[in-house]
């Protein structure tokens, strides 16, 4: 199937996902479940990668700017802006594409090949909306929190690493992370993150929903889901940066 056919089918599926839900109460219940499964359970991994990313950025910046002309607080500033602009949104999104993208594609794909989706349809349930909408709402709503958390933990990690390695003092670091601070960068990152979350969830759900065959095919769908979501995150990163920062 060509790219255009995929895109067409993807938008038809989205159309079904966003048609009016039948029983709001049940959708609410499902969304809470997904918040737990896709959102809360990602806190750990996001925290771990953020602390290490902050640490590495700080140490690398320190070793690359060993010039007495450059003030030490620049290290704090660089750590802050790197986290805010790219790492807490794009890199975290790529990690989430691996974690929740494969989870979504394999869950929905398994339901497809074991005819659970047919069972929903036969009961007159709009399976696309019932299975996918709660996941989209949960991830789009929750991912900005993950992004914000990643910024804080990353900057904190930078401080710990910088001070314990001895490349910067606490004072310089704190001065640096406050220096020439542009609050809009946070807004920019949160918007990006919400859009990435939408891409991950919808693309992975698409691949799961149109699985056909057996467990082998579900595995393939899940791989495709991760690869394609990652590519679209990178593509949209360029587009959104141009749109939001120019």
């Amino acid at each position: 199937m060509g790219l255009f056919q995929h895109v067409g089918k993807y938008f038809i599926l989205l159309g079904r996902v966003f048609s009016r839900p039948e029983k709001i109460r049940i959708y609410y219940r499902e969304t809470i479940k997904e918040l737990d499964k896709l959102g809360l359970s990602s806190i750990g991994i996001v925290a771990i990668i953020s602390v290490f990313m902050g640490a590495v950025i700080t140490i690398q910046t320190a070793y690359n700017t060993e010039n007495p002309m450059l003030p030490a607080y620049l290290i704090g500033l660089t750590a802050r802006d790197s986290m805010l602009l790219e790492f807490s949104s794009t890199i975290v999104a790529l990690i989430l594409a691996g974690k929740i993208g494969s989870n979504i594609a394999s869950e929905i794909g398994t339901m497809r090949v074991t005819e659970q989706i047919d069972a929903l349809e036969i009961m007159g349930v709009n399976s696309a909306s019932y299975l996918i909408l709660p996941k989209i709402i949960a991830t789009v709503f929750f991912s900005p929190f993950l992004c914000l958390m990643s910024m804080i933990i990353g900057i904190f990690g930078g401080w710990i690493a910088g001070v314990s390695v001895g490349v910067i003092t606490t004072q310089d670091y704190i001065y640096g992370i406050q220096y020439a601070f542009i609050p809009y960068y946070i807004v920019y990152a949160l918007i990006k993150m919400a859009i990435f979350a939408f891409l991950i969830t919808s693309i992975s759900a698409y691949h799961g929903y149109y699985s056909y065959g057996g467990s082998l095919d579900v595995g393939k769908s899940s791989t495709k889901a991760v690869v394609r979501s990652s590519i679209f995150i990178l593509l949209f990163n360029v587009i959104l940066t141009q749109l939001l920062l120019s």
Partner: protein
Amino acid sequence: MIEVKNIYKSFNGIPVLKNINVLFEKGKTNLIIGQSGSGKTVLLKSIVGLHEVDQGEIIFDGTVFNKLDFKEKKEMRKQIGMLFQGGALFDSSTVEENVMYPLDMFSEMNYNEKRERANECLKRVNIINANQLYPAEISGGMQKRVAIARAIALNPKYLFCDEPNSGLDPQTAILIDNLIKEITEEYNMTTIVNTHDMNSVMENGDNVMFIYKGEKWWQGSRDDIFDSENKELNDFIFASKLSQKIRDLKNSR
């Protein structure tokens, strides 16, 4: 009564069903038999509207089902129960939740009423003390029975079963067959069952349709099968040594 008229269905240009015309009677267990890959599942899914047919009409008691609009179809679906080839229970829900699911979606019952109805259905299929287990924790035969309970939860007028006894031992298979037959008569439903199990044909074969390479090849009752001259039907039915012996015995009498 369900009437199927001139149905054609193909996937990506490859025809799977060709000009199927058949009548399924009310209050009876109607069987569709045929080899693996002959199109039984596709036919059943086309009748219930999970596949759009390319051509033809599917008539449920006078209503042309496949010409209804989305909303009318949905209304109609509440009267349809279906048992899938693999059971298709929702893995993340317990046995009880599975049976309650259609009630959750479509009835205005409160929680206790829904539970009561679910337990009534589970009892009907002889599942007791398994309410809180997950599908992965019960045997294949039990899964099939739970799936039947879920299919009948809303008191459907039409019941569809895709190979209800595949993967089961002969005794359990007959139990399931009888259960479907009893329920059908009890609620006066129109039931259609896909099978390639000869025991089912002998137990329940009042109205049997034989499908061969996507075409209706033969239709009749279990007694007609022994007298049929249809070569493909005979090859299919009397494939095993055991069934050949039975035929020879019957013919020698």
